[in-house]
């Protein structure tokens, strides 16, 4: 078993899907959290990052960058990527969709003009997010009625990404009011012992 070290800021952010993959797989890893406050970042860390950004994953002494590439690599290593190339692609597709949702959130998250921010946020919550969740609800339903997993008949990192999105979208059931299958899957995944334990013991962070 290689030595795994995941390096990121003190938050869930772009590292949490990978952390959930480690936890669901029951694989130990070093969960390194680097602070900007006391100069730890950029410090000596930035130069070690292939694109000058975090998260990065060290597998023994070899480094990987880009949160989705890291997540996919770990998912494959721990048999959480999907059982066939097709299933893996279906899972990738769902991850890409969560990335698109995240991109929409960033549009208003960093908007400095308060009025514009409120307008973008309103558009996201009333139109963009429901549309995206609608697509995901349909995809889930296509998989044997949607009472199991997103892809195939076992856990993949696509399910973990959904469980993680719950926190990014405010940590309440509200956004999923019209997506009962998604809500059910989120509940099932977050109740899985390894995931539930991590959620209750992980550092509580604002992002």
């Amino acid at each position, binding site marked *: 078993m290689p030595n795994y070290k995941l390096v990121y800021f003190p938050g869930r952010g772009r590292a949490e899907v990978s952390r959930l993959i480690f936890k669901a797989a029951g694989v130990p890893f070093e969960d390194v959290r680097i602070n900007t406050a006391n100069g730890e970042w950029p410090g000596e860390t930035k130069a070690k990052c292939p694109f000058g950004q975090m998260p990065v994953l060290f597998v023994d002494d070899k480094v990987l960058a880009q949160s989705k590439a890291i997540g996919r690599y770990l998912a494959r290593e721990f048999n959480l990527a999907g059982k066939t*190339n097709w299933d893996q692609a279906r899972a990738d597709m769902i991850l*890409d969709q969560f990335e698109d949702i995240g991109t929409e959130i960033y549009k208003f998250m960093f908007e400095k003009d308060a009025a514009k921010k409120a307008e973008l946020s309103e558009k996201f919550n009333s139109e963009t997010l429901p549309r995206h969740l609608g*697509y995901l609800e349909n995809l889930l339903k296509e998989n044997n009625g949607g009472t199991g997993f997103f892809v195939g008949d076992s856990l993949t990192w696509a399910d973990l990404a959904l469980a993680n999105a719950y926190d990014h979208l405010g940590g309440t059931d509200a956004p999923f009011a019209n997506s009962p299958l998604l809500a059910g899957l989120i509940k099932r995944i977050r109740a899985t012992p390894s995931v539930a334990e991590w959620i209750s013991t992980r550092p509580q962070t604002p992002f």
Partner: protein
Amino acid sequence: MPTYKITYFNFRGRAELARLIFAAAGVPYEDLRIEMSRWPVEYKDQCPFGQLPLLEVDGKVLAQSKTIARYLAREFNLAGKDSREQALADMILDHYADIMNEMKVIWLESDAEKKATLVEKFKTETLSKHLGYLETILRQNGGGFIVGDSLTWADLMVVDSNDWLGVMFPNPYDNFPLLAGLVKRVREMPQVAEWIAKRPDTPR
């Protein structure tokens, strides 16, 4: 061999990486380019996320351009020889996606003067830094291919990027000799060269 179909608009855009993969692999596919007037009415409902491009494999659909390209790369042994190489290729894909997202913001700027300033700033500060990281990766890998020791879809990403970066920044790899060399070598590979010569000539 399954039947493959790519549905997209008549652009290189978000479908071209997949088209380059088909070309490099020598695998035939239907390259359907639809008129804007037929979108969304005729096609949107087929699309899992209401967007193109769409890949159909014996009638089963996949969405999301990056996923489509990766699936094809894996099917045709152009993804990387082991899990780490595959991850390195994925990493490079994500980096190009980040660059494209930043360029998109500039592209959508409506004030012409402001846009010109943003374009210049991006070119001299941001883009050179982003491409510099890739030049380093290529150099550290010996300068031949960007991942491993044979052609992967990561090399095709570099070729594709030369075109889409070029829409806003002509000759984007002029100051990056290894990347420029890679673009030239891969574009001259027979199957890639044949595709580039015969593909529809579109503005982007």
